[in-house]
């Protein structure tokens, strides 16, 4: 029986259960993005987007979702398409830059490469943002998540080519920049309000210099 008087942070651990300890079933309203995705995958695999095929795909998606129920993914209810596009473009640029960097390290530096395990406490409370930040930074070569502390939203990452205290700080700043961009794109309204006046580290450094 989960305690009803948990602090908001601990309650996240029990979010798959309701107050009576019964497992939540996601409603159709919460699940439509998943259904849409499944229908798209079905159409793509058949290479056929005709209405009949999509209808059959939708039926199969409904059957799958009802046969293998998952705890609901609680989205924040806010989605800024412009920031999503910006995030994706920035992600691609970041992936290319980091790939070149890691390639240079692999070919030139080799055995002398030093890396660090750093702890990055995130500002957000939401599981979704913590998960997506971890996902995005793992996809960018040069950093990946070793461990997550859910109760304090802390990511422990392995970061390549970090061999001074200054670079540790810089790496931490980069991760917080990913977090900022993700909150701008899909974070909840409160978190967006709290973070929208922040600028990226590069702009901040430029402002501080003169």
């Amino acid at each position, binding site marked *: 029986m989960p305690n009803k008087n948990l602090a908001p942070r601990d309650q996240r651990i029990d979010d798959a259960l309701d107050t009576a300890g019964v497992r939540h079933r996601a409603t159709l309203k919460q699940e439509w993005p998943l259904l849409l995705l499944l229908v798209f995958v079905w159409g793509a695999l058949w290479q056929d987007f005709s209405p009949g095929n999509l209808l059959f795909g939708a039926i199969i998606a409904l059957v799958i979702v009802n046969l293998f129920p998952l705890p609901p993914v609680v989205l924040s209810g806010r989605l800024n398409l412009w920031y999503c596009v910006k995030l994706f473009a920035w992600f691609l640029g970041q992936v290319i830059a980091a790939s070149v960097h890691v390639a240079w390290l692999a070919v030139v530096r080799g055995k002398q490469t030093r*890396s660090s395990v*750093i702890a990055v406490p995130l500002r957000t409370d939401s599981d979704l943002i913590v998960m997506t930040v971890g996902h995005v930074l*793992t996809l960018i070569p040069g950093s990946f*998540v070793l461990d997550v502390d859910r109760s304090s939203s802390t990511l422990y990452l*392995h970061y390549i080519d970090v061999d001074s205290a200054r670079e540790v700080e810089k790496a931490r700043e980069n991760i917080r920049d990913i977090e900022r961009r993700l909150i701008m794109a899909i974070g909840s309204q409160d978190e967006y309000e709290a973070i929208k006046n922040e600028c990226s580290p590069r702009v901040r450094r430029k402002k501080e210099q003169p």
Partner: protein
Amino acid sequence: MEIFLDILVAVLLILGCLMSLIAGIGLLTFPDMLTRMHAATKPQVLGFLLIFAGLAIHLRNWTIVPVLIVAWAMQLLTAPVSAHMIGRSGYRTKHAAKDTLFSDELRQVVDKVSSGSATGAIPVVDSQDHEQDGK
């Protein structure tokens, strides 16, 4: 126009395959397992993007683009899962050499929690544990 597209295809395919070669080189030259994992992520994201783009342009076939998008998106969704699992169990089971690390901010937390089992579901660290660590 055709020749331009052909050159684009050539550049995309060769760069994509270069990513796989660099991943192989990285696997050989990096000093410890956790660093080698960075090399393994490279062909998964950028390499496949380039190869898929090259393939779609070369075949001049729009119906395969959604399939390639699905393949790439699946790669994006699943690659971090295995990276996280390998990295985590490598770190916790001491398979990964740690003498090449510059700093290690996870060690005290793990030492505190995983004195029992080295693998499997590691209990969640309470925030209280952190506070005691600091004392």
